[in-house]
């Protein structure tokens, strides 16, 4: 029998504040609904138990500066650890698929972590994906983010990674947090086209959503031939969501799951904790378990009509041609301080809304036709000029890229005494699975 795993970790003793959307109550009614329906008694359902994600797994995907100890990680590490337990069960073929129904969420947490943003600190899916790659050798992973918000953290982590296809469907960034995820964002110089952003108009509804999946997302996923399919299953597309306006129903979510056939679905956002979550979670779990979800109905139906379908199809055609027309436009330049090699560079800032501060990042990518290319991200929190640096040597790195990364690690940690030297440097050597953190005060920690 094909087994479907449920990892239910509602973190009943954790919140970001008594009335914060990310509070103890969030999965309370979901628990009541799932338990009352008796889903745990379905013969194909197995329940898994959470554990704490090791820091090695965390730092293989994300750089927590100035170091992991500076962050409040307890709940986040359990959510990430839950995803890992499920990943292991899947990779060992103990389960056919599974749903990590865990909180807190993670898809807004990026390659560098300076704090909590969009309720996320650790990226549960990214930690899972890099764990599956390093432990089991998978080389083609697709992540489809169906949260109503752009999965900017996940995109950020895999933007330069040609082995990961990242697709995000979300309400248009011009009308919703975090304001990114436009069709032109298609990936870094070594991974162009491995990111697909599909911003949708408010009111898209079940029909429009399924249409996009069938006509755009699924063909793209099939062409990539992923070995693993992960779904960031946010539930804020639901018509009752207080923040967004996408008009999707619980049954609509069941169909989304049925179409995507993810191996592992991980809960992301969704804060309509009474009107949506109990029903959406039930529909997703039933769809994964191959059960009929057509009788899952919310007590109150949608109050608004979805956008007119013909108009939606025109929107889709335009968006698609816009995406196709977007061309890569990268300039290489020699950077004296980075071994005097050629790099593509990019500067951007990241806003941490939970605590209200800005991070400035300077990113360098080593252009490479043979691998994902070494990536360097220098992070600071203005007006403070102190820099923390992430050096990432990608999975299956070519020799020159690996060499460059190691030399940079030497260089940056040795020059530590210099005036503008780094406060902390994380070497994320995914290629040889060596995760080293150097901190000015402590020296090197090996994870």
């Amino acid at each position, binding site marked *: 029998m094909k087994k479907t795993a449920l990892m239910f970790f509602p973190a009943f003793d954790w919140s970001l504040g008594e009335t914060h959307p990310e509070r103890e109550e969030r999965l309370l009614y979901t628990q009541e609904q799932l338990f009352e*329906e008796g889903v745990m*008694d379905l013969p194909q359902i197995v329940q898994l138990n959470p554990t704490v994600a090791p820091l090695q797994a965390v730092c293989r995907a994300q750089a927590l500066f100035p170091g992991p100890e500076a962050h409040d990680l307890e709940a986040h590490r359990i959510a990430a*650890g839950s995803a890992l337990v499920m990943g292991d069960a899947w990779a060992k073929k103990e389960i056919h698929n599974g749903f990590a129904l865990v909180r807190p969420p993670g898809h807004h947490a990026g390659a560098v972590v300076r704090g909590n943003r969009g309720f996320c600190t650790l990226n549960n899916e990214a930690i899972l994906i890099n764990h599956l790659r390093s432990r089991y050798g998978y080389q083609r992973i697709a992540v489809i983010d169906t949260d109503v918000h752009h999965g900017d953290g996940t995109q950020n982590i895999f933007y330069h990674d040609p082995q990961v296809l990242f697709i995000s469907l979300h309400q248009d960034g011009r009308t919703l947090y975090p304001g990114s995820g436009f069709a032109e964002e298609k990936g870094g110089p070594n991974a162009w086209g491995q990111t697909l952003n599909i911003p949708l108009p408010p009111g898209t509804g079940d029909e429009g959503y399924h249409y996009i999946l069938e006509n755009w997302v699924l063909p793209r996923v099939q062409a990539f031939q992923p070995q693993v399919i992960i779904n960031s299953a946010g539930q804020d597309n639901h018509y009752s969501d207080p923040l967004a306006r996408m008009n999707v129903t619980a049954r609509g979510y069941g169909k989304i799951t049925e179409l995507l056939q993810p191996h592992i679905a991980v809960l992301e956002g969704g804060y309509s904790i009474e009107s949506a979550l109990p029903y959406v979670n039930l529909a997703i779990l039933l769809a994964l378990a191959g059960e*009929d979800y057509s009788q*899952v109905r919310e007590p109150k139906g949608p109050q608004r009509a979805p956008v007119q379908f013909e108009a939606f199809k025109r929107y889709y055609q335009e968006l698609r041609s816009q995406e196709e027309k977007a061309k890569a436009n990268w300039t290489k330049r020699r950077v004296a301080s980075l071994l005097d090699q050629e790099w593509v560079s990019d500067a951007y800032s990241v806003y941490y809304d939970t605590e209200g501060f800005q991070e400035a990042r300077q990113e360098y990518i080593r252009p490479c036709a043979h691998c994902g290319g070494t990536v360097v991200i220098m992070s600071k929190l203005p007006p403070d000029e102190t820099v923390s640096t992430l050096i990432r040597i990608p999975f299956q790195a070519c020799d020159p890229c690996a060499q460059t990364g190691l030399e940079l690690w030497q260089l940056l940690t040795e020059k530590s005494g210099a005036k503008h030297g780094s406060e902390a440097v994380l070497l994320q050597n995914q290629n040889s699975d060596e995760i080293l953190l150097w901190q000015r005060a402590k020296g090197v920690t090996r994870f």
Partner: protein
Amino acid sequence: MALRIGIDVGGTFTDAVLVDNGVIAAATKVSTPADVNTLLPTVLEALEALRVTDITQVEQITVSTTLMTNAILQNRLTKSELYLIPGYGMKLDALPWPVPYQAFKGQLDFRGREVEALDPADIEQQARRLTREGSLPCAAIVGKFSHRNNAQELTFDQILRKNAPGIQTTLGHRWGGANFYRRALTAYLNMAGQELFAAFASELTRAIREKGYEAPVYVLKADGGVLPLEEVRPVDTIYSGPAASVLGALALAEETADSYLVIDVGGTTTDMGLVLGQVPLLSAKGAKIGGFLTQIRSLAVRSLPLGGDSVVELRRGAVEIQPYREGTPYCLGGPKLTPTDAMCYLQIIDFGDPKKAEEALMEQLRADGGAAAEAEARGLAQDILKAMTKKILAAMTDLEKEWREEPAYKIWQVLHPQRREQFPIWLSGGPAPGLVRELSEQSRRAVKISRQAGFANAAGAALARPAFSRTLHMDTVVGRYRIEETGEQGAWQGSKRARGEAERLIEEIMRKETIKRELEPDDWQKDEFDYFPVVDGYRMAGQIVRGSWSMPSGIIGRVKR
């Protein structure tokens, strides 16, 4: 302490003990006949055999009976209707229903608020059909989320009774945990077992009274607690055998032992359970019996169809222990080779005829086409005990795993996992002495055995105390509370933030029960309450409260050597 009597109806023997101030003053064993109709005479025969003289001094008689377990497993229940109010959600037939049901209109949501009303006409029509057909069976009525709000079940019941006078009903909300499917099957079993159990209870009480006993008659439940025969819900008495084993170990174990595994090896079955800090571990899930998943609270136990009388066969040199018995062991005049014969031959037990045991071993060796000399017989006997022990240890590991891997829903639980401890083993039951060495060798654990190993279950029943827990679920916004174990529900008129008030409510409920059962409140185990803030918009509207206090199962006094 005055006299207490415990009677344990096992698959092979029915045991009875008389405990006089912590000393087993008398113990008897009569065989349990295969015919279930002789259950009552068997119990009475065991009681009679105790030859109690001070009948008036007996303060309690406790029976542990297989009546409900066997009635369910052998499909000897009364036919009952099963009426469901499922509403929307998972399809009903996603789960296997071992009995037919009928679904009716109506729906509640997860906080017990009505989404769709009942359709009285539907229920009236059903009632009229029953009346017309002239059969007035009994019915279990179960609604989804009825554990949160019993209103629809109560209304349904009222309409049904009014239109089909005389019908007997059981309502699902009396088993108060969340799980519609299990609640439905539990209510069904309770309804379907009612007649059988009531008949047994009244006949047993009458017979005991006729013998001159005035003591109340108690019955042991799956959760290790006891209740007066007339108060107990019939289904709650399933699996009282394993519960008696665990309590028996508590009664006979040394005072110093704190946590240990209990293994009770009988003739037909081997039962095991876990005692943690002197308290038997309860299972996180309801019991499963036959094709029925239930909400019946039970101890975390394992029951193997493996015992001293199990039939042993040798096939191509491999020992196979069959999950059944065919009478007594060969060395006691039975027809087949059994583990008891192996023990007898190896002279590690002091009953049975070693010559006959040897005969049985040799015969199996020859039948398997092998050499049949003393060395082989000895080897075979040892192999049998090894195979039996291996099976017992596998179930034991599984039981410990269930305990360690209970789902964690809080950060605190994940950060404080159950200890990976090697619990010592407390062994009881007739064939127990024969397994001590093999068990301690294979498990590498300390194995202790009781001197009165053969009467552990009956002693456990005799000394079992009433155990109960009261789990409060309160929604101060909706304004309702309920008690999971009893299905009691009520309106909550206290504060929206009920910290303190909720504890006082449960304390009051616990106190009443404690006084009624003549126990001491000192023994209460008070778990920390959970308070979930309920937010409406961006404002705190109230709380959902969960918490549990209990009088854990256990024993009154202890058996002295």
